[in-house]
Structures are given as C-alpha cells and as structure tokens.
C-alpha cells in the first residue's frame, strides 16, 4: 500500500489546510496510542465488525487489520465532531447544493454522515442503503444512530436498490457513496453501469460525493470510470489518509470559485461538525493526476479488488 506522493502537482494545499489536517491526524493518533480497548467484535455476513474505545473516542472498523484507512469514530465528549478528514471532505459536496431536499447515502458505517445531514436538514428526507443488518445494530448500539421518519435505513444491496429506484423514478438532490469501508470492495458498485444508474437517480444539477481510494492502480481505473460517466469532476485528495473524495454533478460542473456564497452560508452551520470549508477549498481540482488511458471498469470488466492490491 502506498500513500499518494505529497509532490503530486495538483495537490494544492494552503499552509493552513495542511496545518489543520496535521492537527486532525495528531488528534486521531494520540488517542490511538492511548490504549484502544475492543468493546465489540462480530463476524457478520459481510465483514468483521470491530468497535473499539480510545479515550473519549468510539471507533468502528471493518477489518481486523489495524492499518485500516476508513473507519468511523464518535467522540463522546463532542458527538457532532467528525473525527476524520474524509467525512469533512464529503460534506464539501453541500457547496454545490446547500439545501438538498432528498438525500441518499450508500453505506451506513457508524451513521456519521446521515446523522449530520439529518440534523442539518431536518425537513429533508435522508435514505441510507446498507447491506449488512449487523452494521445497523452496531450503529444504533454504539454510535447513537437512530432512525426517524425522515432518516431511514434500507437494508439492501446498493446495486439492487439503485436499479429499483431508477425504475421507480426516485430522484435525489445529493447522493453520497461511502460503501468502501473494508478489505473487500463490492466490485459491482465500481463500474460504469452502476455510476450511470446512480447518475439517473440524480435530479438535474444533483450532486454526487464519493469516498474512494487514493491508493494502488485502482485509483487510475476508478478515475477514468467516473470521468466516463460524469465528465469533469472535483478530485480532492487527503494528505493524511489514503482517501480521496470525488464530487461530481449531474450537468455542468460549477466552478468552485463561484460557490463563495454557499461557502459562507455553510461555514457556520458546519462548524459544530469540525468542518472548516476554507481549509479544503484549495484542494479542489479538476486536473487529472491519474493515468487517463487506464481501462474503464464495467460490469464486464470489474477486477477492482485485484487492481486494489496492485
């Protein structure tokens, strides 16, 4: 596993942004050093679910490997704070639609993103698709996740849900893809056809945010696949974790510079979550830093796991 080169030409980070991320990284590291105690371990149908406690942090992992990149943490002293930069970066998608009415989140995890969206937009509907019933139980038991009339979890394979929703002409203003949490990548959720179906679920101008990989050959293939479906998109890479966030729009991609109004409107509302939009704005780029000749992933050609290990 390699982390992206810090010299990558388009990773334009303000000094402030780097400082902020380093601070987050330290924040995440310090409690980790302070004795993590496993409070729940479960082999579910789909993964190994691990919940541990590090000081005030309760964290969810989908792997027994301790170097897992994607996880979800709850700070009991500050339950709203989003502990990981990737969650902050996902919230940046709100810049392109600051008032979504219908929201879809694929992948529940600890419920961080759907809960925050539900709190921010109490009158909007938030649908969450999660394949693993055990994850829902863990989110409810350890992470304070609760469903409500406008925040509901649908226990289904996301591909099946998406196909049915396209048929039923369901539409969302904002879709967040956060389904890649464990060692195993659901390959049928990383193909051109799946993204085309997801795009069909978006209203005109609707926004897609995807938490994906910044490591291995998969980075190139995934990038060309998103490009094939959405054309130009914003690519935001994290310097402290192996994540990158893709933000794409169903329609013309607006220049992030024109979103100053939305940014100032959101800034205050996102502060309780620890999201500082201005820190991330310099990282928005549409310039490809991947091999643009990499083969597009399709239902016919979907070796995401093999590419992810190379």
């Amino acid at each position, binding site marked *: 596993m390699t982390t992206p080169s810090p010299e990558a030409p388009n990773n334009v980070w303000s000094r402030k942004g780097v400082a902020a991320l380093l601070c987050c990284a330290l924040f995440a590291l310090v409690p980790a050093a302070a004795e993590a105690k496993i409070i729940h371990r479960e082999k579910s149908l789909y993964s190994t679910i691990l919940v541990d406690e590090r000081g005030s942090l309760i964290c969810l992992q989908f792997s027994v490997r301790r170097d897992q990149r994607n996880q979800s943490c709850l700070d009991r002293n500050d339950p709203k704070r989003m502990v990981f930069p990737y969650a902050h970066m996902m919230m940046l998608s709100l810049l392109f639609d600051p008032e979504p009415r219908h929201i879809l989140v694929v992948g529940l995890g600890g419920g961080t993103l759907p809960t925050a969206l539900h709190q921010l937009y109490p009158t909007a509907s938030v649908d969450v698709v999660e394949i693993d019933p055990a994850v829902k139980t863990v989110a409810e038991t350890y992470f304070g996740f609760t469903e409500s009339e406008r925040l509901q979890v649908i226990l289904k*394979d996301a591909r099946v849900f998406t196909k049915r929703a396209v048929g039923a002409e369901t539409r969302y203003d904002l879709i967040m893809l956060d389904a890649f949490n464990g060692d195993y990548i659901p390959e049928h959720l990383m193909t051109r056809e799946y993204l085309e179906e997801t795009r069909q679920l978006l209203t005109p101008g609707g926004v897609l945010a995807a938490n994906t990989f910044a490591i291995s050959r998969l980075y190139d293939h995934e990038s060309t696949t998103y490009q094939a479906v959405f054309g130009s998109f914003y690519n935001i890479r994290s310097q402290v974790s192996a994540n990158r966030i893709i933000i794409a729009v169903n329609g013309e991609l607006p220049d992030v510079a024109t979103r100053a109004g939305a940014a100032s409107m959101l800034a205050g509302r996102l502060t309780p979550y620890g999201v500082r939009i201005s820190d991330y704005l310099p990282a928005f780029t549409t310039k490809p830093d991947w091999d643009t000749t990499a083969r597009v992933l399709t239902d016919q050609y979907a070796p995401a796991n093999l590419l992810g290990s190379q």
Partner: protein
Amino acid sequence: MPAIIYVLAFTGGFVIMSLELLGGRVLAPYFGSSIYVWGSIITVFMLSLALGYLFGGRLSLHRPSLTRFGLIFAVAAVLLYPLVYMAEPLMVWIFERVEDPRYGSLLAAGFLFILPTVIMGMISPYSVRLLVASTHESGQVAGRLYFVSTMGSALGTLATSFYFVLWFEMNTILTLLAGALLLMAGIAFAAGRLQDVP
C-alpha cells in the same frame, strides 16, 4: 487413448468451476453480491451436476464411444455460448417480475446455468465408462478420474479469479470457455475416428 480422456475430463472440470465463478459476476448487477446470490449459484450448479451424473451414467450404457463423448462437449459448448447474448435480457426480464433478490437470483441462475452444467455433469461418469476395462480396476480408474477433473476445477477457479477477470471482459472469458469445450469435442471426434480405423 486414456490420456485424451483425462485431458477432456480435466478441461470439463476447469470449465465448470470457471463458469460457476463467473456466475457471481453475471448476477451481481441485478441481484447484488449478497450471500444468497452465491447460495443460488452453488445450489443450481450442485443440482445440475447431480442430474448430469445421473444422465451421463445412463448414456454410458448404450454403445459408449469417443464420438458420443465428444458430442457431450459440443452440446455443452452450444448451450454455454448463448449466455453472452441471453444473460442481460433474461436478467432484466426476471428483475422486473421478481422483487425478492433471493428468488430472482435463484431463477436467473437456473435459467442461465442449468442446461450447460447438466451436460457438463455427464462428462465424469461417461469418462469412467470409457476408461474402465475391468471391475477390478474400476475404483482406481474412478479415483484417478476424479483427481484429474477436480484438479481441472481447482485450476479453473484459480485462473479465472486471479487472472482472467483481470485480463478479459466476462463475455470474452465465456467465449473462450465455449471455445475450449468445442476444441475438446473436436479432439474426441478425431480420436474416435482414429480408433475406428483398424
């Protein structure tokens, strides 16, 4: 001559498991990759093979020959190849009619894989019939044959999951599998003809 039969049995084992692995990929876009999708596929393959064993044994009672053995491969190839064109429309059809992905995937796996797999299931018992010359050695021959065809299955599983899916599109692999079956049919026909020449 026995060597040819072992080669054919090996290839049969290879194709069966390669196809079973691809089955998961074929169904995933419509029915997901949940455990019950694999359950459907494995159920269908086991049932089909079970029937194939029965029919293959039955067929071996009447004038067993390499030519007829080759015919099994040819028919399997002809039934396997249409998956390239039929899988998509068939799954759309089932998806629109069956809401529950458990039964949807079971039905789809059934329609797509029963026919070629039943035919491929006939290979093993038919091979035993062609190889066994005396009851005394029949156990040893059957053991050796299962060894060879199961090694084929192991290699088919490995090659498909480690390499083929990385190199080729799924339809290309299906075409190659059908091609391999046809090639085996050709070899059996040729060997059968040679055998007939005194």
